[in-house]
């Protein structure tokens, strides 16, 4: 049962990041505009993020899906989720009316509670998956002794 839950969560977490990454890769210029909307990073840094982050999301999502470089991918996507939560919360606190850029092309102003809740849920999924992996590794280590 636990294996099935883990598999479903793997597909869900990885799938959301792959989907978001592909949408952003489709239109990096738009993602650039969305990042600038947060007023948190300079123009060129935002441009770098716009071309780099979507690929990182796709690669990590694929690695989680196919269980390759698993813990590294979980660490990166957990980190990204934290960054997104902080960025969204900061923009919300500053009263900025923005399109979060979460899923590529702008779809109008972001509903902050929903966007933050989604990122929190993803973070919890990745932490759960990491815990499961740690337990499995621990069991393997004990079995070898």
């Amino acid at each position: 049962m636990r294996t099935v839950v883990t598999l479903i969560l793997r597909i869900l977490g990885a799938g959301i990041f792959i989907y978001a990454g592909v949408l952003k890769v489709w239109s990096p210029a738009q993602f650039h505009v969305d990042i600038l909307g947060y007023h948190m990073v300079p123009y060129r840094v935002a441009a770098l993020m716009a071309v780099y982050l979507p690929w990182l999301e796709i690669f990590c999502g694929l690695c989680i899906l196919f269980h390759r470089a698993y813990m590294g991918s979980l660490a990166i996507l957990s980190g990204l989720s934290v960054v997104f939560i902080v960025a969204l919360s900061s923009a919300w606190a500053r009263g900025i009316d923005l399109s979060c850029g979460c899923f590529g092309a702008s779809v109008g102003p972001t509903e902050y509670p929903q966007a933050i809740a989604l990122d929190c849920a993803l973070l919890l999924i990745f932490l759960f998956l990491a815990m499961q992996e740690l337990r499995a590794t621990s069991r393997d280590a004990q079995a070898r002794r």
Partner: protein
Amino acid sequence: MTWADRIRLLRKTALQALVLCAFAIVPALLTAFFHPDKPEWDPTVLKEGETNLPLAISWGDEVLWVDARSREDYDKEHIPGAVLLTEDDWDEEIEDVLNEWLPEMKVVVYCSSLACQESHKVRERLLEYGLTEVYVLKGGWETWKAAVE
């Protein structure tokens, strides 16, 4: 799990993360140079008095948007907070612009598209009024509309 196991796992995780970060650089570079919709890298590559949407957005609240299209277009839809200013009704509408304008603000004028000239004309007239930081939005309303859609 012993401490040695934990440290080994931590190292492995960090190495995997580094490799993944490195892998993502290759397609990112290809995107940066060859993607048809790549970000505008150098915000300064613009004609004199022009700005683009990312740069204007990065100015945040220090921008006064001025809509140089027709009243009909303005009433239908406009950039949030934009003030209407057209050549035809200049004397009436300039009051609204000056009421909204503050000395530290940058003024960004837009018309309907890349090809329209109204924004350039309005910019020229605003400069004659003594406003210094007046820019034309490259691509105009079409650029904005594409960005929000």
